[in-house]
């Protein structure tokens, strides 16, 4: 029997929202999406919509979106879908931010607190100086006519 046959059938997940007075409203549970992600998505919609957040219950955030330009029901549904997608993006951003926090702190600490290393240009100049000194220890300038003779 193949693994696909054992797996349960995928069921469609629907975003439950309410459309009323040119406004779409839905609830987000903070156990699924942290407030940082909700704020992140809301921040990106502030220029397109009128936003209002409510607290209908503990750990639940009510999002009320009203487009700045009037639209039909399909437009409001699309808006709710876009917000949900952005919510997912922001949740991933938060997770990545948390998982790479130690690495970022380490990189910043190393950049600020380690001894400065001589730059490659300085190293090359020093190398050239060393070569010139090897050719003429006294570094006395000689006209090119004489050197060519």
């Amino acid at each position, binding site marked *: 029997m193949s693994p696909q046959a054992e797996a349960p059938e995928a069921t469609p997940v629907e975003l439950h929202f309410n459309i009323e007075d040119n406004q779409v409203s839905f609830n987000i549970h903070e156990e699924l999406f942290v*407030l*940082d992600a909700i*704020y992140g998505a809301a921040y990106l919609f*502030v220029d397109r919509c*009128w*936003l209002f*957040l409510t607290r209908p219950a503990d750990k639940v955030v009510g999002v009320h979106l009203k487009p700045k330009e009037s639209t039909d029901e399909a437009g409001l549904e699309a808006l709710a879908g876009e917000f949900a997608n952005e919510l997912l993006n922001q949740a991933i951003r*938060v997770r990545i931010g948390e998982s790479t926090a130690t690495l970022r702190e380490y990189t910043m600490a190393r950049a600020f607190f380690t001894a400065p290393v001589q730059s490659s240009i300085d190293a090359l100049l020093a190398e050239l100086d060393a070569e010139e000194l090897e050719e003429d220890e006294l570094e006395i300038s000689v006209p090119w006519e004489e050197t060519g003779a």
Partner: protein
Amino acid sequence: MHSTTRDFSLSLYRQTALQETQQAYAELLDARFEHAEHNSHVTFSGDGDDLDFLIDAFCNHALFLSIQQYREDGVT
């Protein structure tokens, strides 16, 4: 004069953000605050036809400032 009320949850909107928004909109909109433990009950009143528009703009501004302050505080 028309009036409308809205409840701003203090777990979502910063008190300072609401105060700054009130000051910014003082000349356009009359917003009276009644503070409770978990939310701020705001009564908006005005004569013009654009009252709803101004309330929506007020809410957006308060949310925008709340998010900014949340990020400045570095709460993740």
